[in-house]
């Protein structure tokens, strides 16, 4: 074992990752970041101090043993690194790409206090991609326990919950309304950020755990949540349907042709492959001058997709300033590199159409930042007399979503006043045995937060079913509500029913 590393002895510079040239990539759907090569990954792995504190583990919503897997990398024990990650996260190739690491593990990295933090996300992706390339799949020996678990929604929350319940020995069926599993990973996040074959490879691993995916199934309407519990024999159910229902602003002209939600644009382009029209049948009238309202990750995706669909000019309109933009820094940076024009402190007030009801321009007003509002961000206020027009033939709303109403319409689930599903701390809903997590509980968030919620619900569901790890500690005074109720510490880290073959 090498002697203890210090901040002085580690490589000082964060290892850069190869990226496609911005000019070229802005016109194709190939992945932007090419990922670390082996030698780059090994250099970056050396930058981890293996500090005793491990703030990164606490910064990770699913608590991956980050120093542990990086240590395996430095030892060139790649499969070992993969084993450690998949102990808590079955989907490293996805999370390595789409997690906002700068506000999670990397944001609290000890090295980051002095230098650039260790590129944990890139290392995670490296390990995940190597596993896909080498065909590794950690298929545990699973002893069936006779319990049946139904999962509603094959997105990140549902996938994470399904994996944990399958590993615990449950028979798991995941229902998906679309014709392919993956949820937002498939319809929302574009290929150049997360290629479809990576998602499919990760889903294949879930299938190998015995999880069954049933697509084309609209739960709530084909059968209800209550039916799953009472008629279909599910002992526990998890709802991870996502938020859905996109918001518009309610300004004049929103129903003009050429005005759509980011969800519609992205679903057409990504899942339905309108970008390969006419080989694929789904149409998408590409705009020449595209304006996207909003500055979150979805807005960045919508802009960068529009660019790749052949737009001459793509503009972002956001009522606050760059500092307040909710998108990941890296996403804004990539968008800027690709030539997207940002109109900060600008708010649309009206969409103007031509004689054929096609949008032709957006009337905007300049904003300035006033006093901080309830979110702590400075509230944008209009500058009187600063109205102006932007010429545009496609307007995309990426200003967030509201709760999808289907399960509220079709079940007795208790909802909060915004229509999201109400849960307790263990993510149990008002119906016994039914749990929920992800955007349909919290409103729009990130992929990894949804995965974290899926895993948290799985802990609650296991406690509910009385499933436990033989190694687990009996505790009566833990803060964990599941633990309190059943006298079981719900840390299933070394779940007894899972033995690696």
């Amino acid at each position, binding site marked *: 074992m090498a002697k203890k590393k210090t901040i002085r002895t580690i490589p000082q510079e964060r290892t850069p990752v190869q990226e496609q040239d911005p000019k070229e990539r802005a016109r194709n759907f190939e992945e932007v970041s090419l990922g670390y090569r082996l030698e780059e990954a090994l250099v970056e792995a050396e930058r981890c101090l293996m500090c005793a504190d491990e703030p990164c583990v606490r910064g990770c919503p699913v608590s991956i043993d980050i120093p542990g897997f990086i240590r395996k990398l430095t030892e060139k024990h790649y499969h070992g690194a993969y084993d450690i990650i998949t102990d808590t996260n079955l989907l490293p190739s996805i999370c390595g790409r789409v997690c906002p690491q700068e506000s999670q593990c990397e944001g609290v990295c000890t090295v980051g206090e002095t230098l650039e933090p260790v590129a944990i996300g890139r290392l995670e992706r490296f390990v995940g991609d190597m596993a896909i390339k080498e065909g590794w799949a950690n298929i545990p020996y699973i002893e069936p326990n006779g319990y049946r678990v139904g999962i509603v929604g094959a997105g990140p929350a549902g996938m994470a919950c399904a994996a944990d319940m399958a590993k615990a020995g449950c028979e798991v069926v995941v229902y998906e309304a679309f014709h392919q599993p993956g949820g937002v990973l498939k319809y929302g996040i574009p290929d150049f950020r997360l290629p479809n074959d990576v998602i499919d490879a990760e889903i294949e691993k879930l299938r190998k755990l015995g999880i069954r995916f049933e697509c*084309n199934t*609209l739960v709530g309407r084909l*059968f209800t949540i209550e039916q799953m519990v009472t008629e279909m024999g599910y002992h526990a159910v998890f709802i991870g349907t996502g938020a859905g229902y996109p918001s518009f602003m309610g300004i004049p002209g929103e129903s003009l042709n050429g005005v759509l939600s980011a*969800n519609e644009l992205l*679903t057409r382009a990504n899942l*339905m492959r309108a970008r390969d*029209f006419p080989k*694929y*049948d*789904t149409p998408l009238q590409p705009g020449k001058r595209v304006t996207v309202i909003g500055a979150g990750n979805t807005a960045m995706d919508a802009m960068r997709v529009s660019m790749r669909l052949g737009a001459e000019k793509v503009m972002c309109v956001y009522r606050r300033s760059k500092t307040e933009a909710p998108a990941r820094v890296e996403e804004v940076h990539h968008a800027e590199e690709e030539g997207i024009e940002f109109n900060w402190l600008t708010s649309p007030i009206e969409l103007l159409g031509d004689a054929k009801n096609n949008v032709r321009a957006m009337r905007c007003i300049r904003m300035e930042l006033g006093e901080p509002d309830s979110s702590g961000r400075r509230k944008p206020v209009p500058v009187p007399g600063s109205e102006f027009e932007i010429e545009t033939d496609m307007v995309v709303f990426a200003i967030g979503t509201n709760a999808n109403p289907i399960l509220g319409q079709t079940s007795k689930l208790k909802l909060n006043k915004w229509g999201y599903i109400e849960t307790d701390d263990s993510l149990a809903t008002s119906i016994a045995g039914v749990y929920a997590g992800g955007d349909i509980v919290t409103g729009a968030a990130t992929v990894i937060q949804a995965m974290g919620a899926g895993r948290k619900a799985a802990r609650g569901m296991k406690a509910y079913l009385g499933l436990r790890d033989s190694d687990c500690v009996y505790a009566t005074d833990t803060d964990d509500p599941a633990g309190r109720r059943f006298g079981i510490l719900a840390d299933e880290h070394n779940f007894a029913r899972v033995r690696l073959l």
Partner: protein
Amino acid sequence: MQPANSSFEIVAREDFSDVTFLLEVKHPMLAKAARAGQFVIVMEREEGERIPLTIADFDRDAGTITLVIQAVGKTTREMQQNCRVGTTLFAVVGPMGIPSHIGGKKKVVCVGGGLGVAPIFPQARAWKESGAYVIGILGFRNRGLVFWEDKFRAVCDELILCTDDGSAGIKGLVTEGIKQAVAKHSDIEELVAIGPPVMMKGCAEATRPHKIRTMVSLNPVMVDGTGMCGGCRVKIGDIVKFACVDGPDFDGHLVDFDDLMSRLGRYKVAEKEALERFQESCRIRGDGAPEPAAALDRPSTDG
């Protein structure tokens, strides 16, 4: 117990005209769950688009649902050509939308025109089952295109056929039929209309002076059908609603039909391109869809 999740078998097909055809699809769970007023989204094949189709009928015993399709665009033309008994559809998902609210009324009128004739049938049947006196009004271009007359007679207390040329029933649009019905019955409590937007608009205008509650079923452009894309947003009075999850039934007196019609055309350029390519490929293969050019010349009935 498990729903079939892929490959949905077509067990029957019937052609009503050179553009309108019926498919019966095996899907026992869907047949069990379906109620009048709901719709499904269908993909013919993996590279296809997702198209919403109103459920025209369902047979819970046989485990089938019935779809009536008008071959007007590329996808529906292709389905007309490829969907045979024994073949399968790549995806069928549903039932979607809020079921029609049926019951509590003594006398109702059910109006179907064009593509709306088939989906008005389960409504008429459900109203009949609820104990209402049902007046059916069906619109066709001419006698040769009339279908399901017997089925309707079986569930309607009165049936008024309307044809453009008067070759069957009365001459004129369904609004003529509504005029007759309203003149004869002063106690009509509700009218349900399904058909092209321009027809539903006409129906709503015909009943407005009489203050008869009028429900219409909207079928705008959709992708997912689950409330996720917002492509199907429609103006109901001053409020924007998503037809897929807030509808598809809305108060016809509040619907902004002009907005709906304008929005139905928003992918017209691409749709036209796809159709032309399809017809070209049919010509090259020599297995063309029945008279595609002739069918194109006809006024489209889906708005």
